């Protein structure tokens, strides 16, 4: 079914999707919406990875991303108070974050062609999608101390890297290990959210 489908045609919508979702992950205030945005972001990642990998391998990305989102969501749902503290301090820097995201986008758009020229055989659309996620992931990491947001930032950063790396390496073991890293990251993120409210034991 997919043989006749031109994957290149979906690259622009996929780039738009990862761009919008990564901005939402930066600005969003409700953790539930953040999980939804993360899940949608992995759909974009899946579409971009599919430009380089066969469908059955690319689908691992979206499944892993959704599972990571679910694990993180469960972590916050168990201790909703951990998120309330974050929420109260959140709105103040919204415009600043939007401006910073705009600057990151400018840097990404201007540097993508040069980076694409370094990587033979990697299309500009892959580099662009990848750098958008890496840039906004790094921005997210630089602006927060909350384990939930830090984990989301790291997952975004890794997702960006995975898009680019998929174009360079096609390997089942790499796909499996990267899925393992993403899931471990989500588990650690959930543990970080839970640990302050856990009972101390000897």
């Amino acid at each position, binding site marked *: 079914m997919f043989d006749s489908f031109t994957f290149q045609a979906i690259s622009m919508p996929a780039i738009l999707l990862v761009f919008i979702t990564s901005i939402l992950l930066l600005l969003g205030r409700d953790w539930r919406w953040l999980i939804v945005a993360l899940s949608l972001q992995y759909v974009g990642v899946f579409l971009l990875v599919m430009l380089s990998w066969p469908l059955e391998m690319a689908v691992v990305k979206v499944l892993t991303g959704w599972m990571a989102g679910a694990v993180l969501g469960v972590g916050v749902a168990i201790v909703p108070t951990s998120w309330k503290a974050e929420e109260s301090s959140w709105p103040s820097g919204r415009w600043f974050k939007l401006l910073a995201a705009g600057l990151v986008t400018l840097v990404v758009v201007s540097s993508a062609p040069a980076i694409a020229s370094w990587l033979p055989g990697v299309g500009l659309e892959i580099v662009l999608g990848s750098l958008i996620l890496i840039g906004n992931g790094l921005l997210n990491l630089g602006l927060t101390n909350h*384990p939930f947001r830090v984990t989301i930032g790291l997952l975004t950063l*890794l997702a960006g*890297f995975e898009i680019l790396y998929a174009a360079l390496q096609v390997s*089942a073991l*790499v796909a499996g*290990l990267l899925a393992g*890293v993403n899931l471990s*990251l989500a588990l650690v993120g959930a543990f*970080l959210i839970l*640990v302050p409210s856990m009972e101390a034991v000897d």
Partner: protein
Amino acid sequence: MNAPQVWILIPGISAITLFLLRRWYRSTVLAGVILTCLLALLARVLPIGKIIEIGPWTFQVDESFFVLGRRFFLENGDRPLLTMVYILAAFWFGAAYIARAGRMLVPLGLAVVALMTAALAVEPLLYAALFVEMAVLVSVPILLVPGKPLGRGILRFIILETIGMPFILFTEWMLTGVETSPGDITMVMRAAGILGLGFMFLLAILPFHTWVPMVAEDSHPYAVSFVLILLPWMIFLFGLGFLDRYTWLRSNEQVYELLRLAGVLMVLTGGIGAAFQRHLGRILGFAVILETGFTLLGAGIQGEAWLTFVLLFPRALAFGVWSLAMAYLWNQGQKMDYQNLQGIGRRMPVVTAAMVLAQFSLVGFPLLAGFPIKLVLWDQVAAQSGWQALFALLGSIGLFASALRSLVVFVTGPDDHPWKITESWQFLLLLGVGLAALLLAGLFPQLFLPSLISGLNAFSHLAP
């Protein structure tokens, strides 16, 4: 049966089992110690790739294990290294129960060891970065104290180590290109630059070192010293793998210059940082930075990579004794800043002596375990560059000043307060053995040096 199954799969499966059984704390610690001792013993006596005859039975431990078409490979040359790794784990697990280092230490520590061994065994080398990242993530719960607010250090630890992984993966891909066209200088420079940056993140090299003292301040001292000794050392071994594999990297003089420069900066940062701290945990963190610097200095001396291996034993011993002594204070609910530690030497003289002597040993104080190795290292560094040796010495003086300052704080107190040993007998026994080992290793370095140097056999191009 094959070697990767024995030294990766068995500890990996055991780690999961012990994690599920962690409710029975004492039993899991005991099982962890027995298993790591057994694996160290097997690494010592069991030849890989040769037919072994025991009575009527014959069997062979193969070198390779294939997963999804990729090979995990451990050979005879790796056995001394495996012995060192599992002895190190057994050493730390041995006192974990007494130190009350948390239920996560043994199961997850075992998983970290298995993952790092997998990182050293996997071929091609690029996959190792993914195992290192997983080991980092698995080590996080070891550092967390349930019920305690999350510190910023642990988040920085996860962030910086995770950022390091993509750099290494990219480098490996670029290095494949370099191998096919070694004359492409631009490609070589890019690959070397990205590789260096990746290891700066992974090894917490300046300016990415800030999380080390922060984590050491917030976490249980015994658990934190396990992670901060084992992880950087094994990541460093992973880095040595690159030097061993790529001739253009190994034969480039500038690579060694850069390693020494990074080493000097780390030693200075660690030493000066330690000298100005007022919190024992942070001092321990800066001492870790200083020791990472010495490892880099050792690696920066061409043809003398064995130095980085012999540093391990005195370092592990000193940090083991130091963190165990700190664990006693931690378990007593004692705050670790100088203000709250005044006069504790009168109540806990053995704990105090252990903390101070361990720092002296790391500095390279005569008669203690660190002295013979540091002496050789300073000598070798001075032969390369006088100012680098001078700065390395200055870093050590910084830690020495910190140890003296701690000593003054510990023994200063009201004159009417009598000196009295109040430590528990278990701690007295373990710290006594540790202190004796620090002294014996300093007096008879020939007892442990040869077996440590043989660890370098795993890197055939770097072995003496």
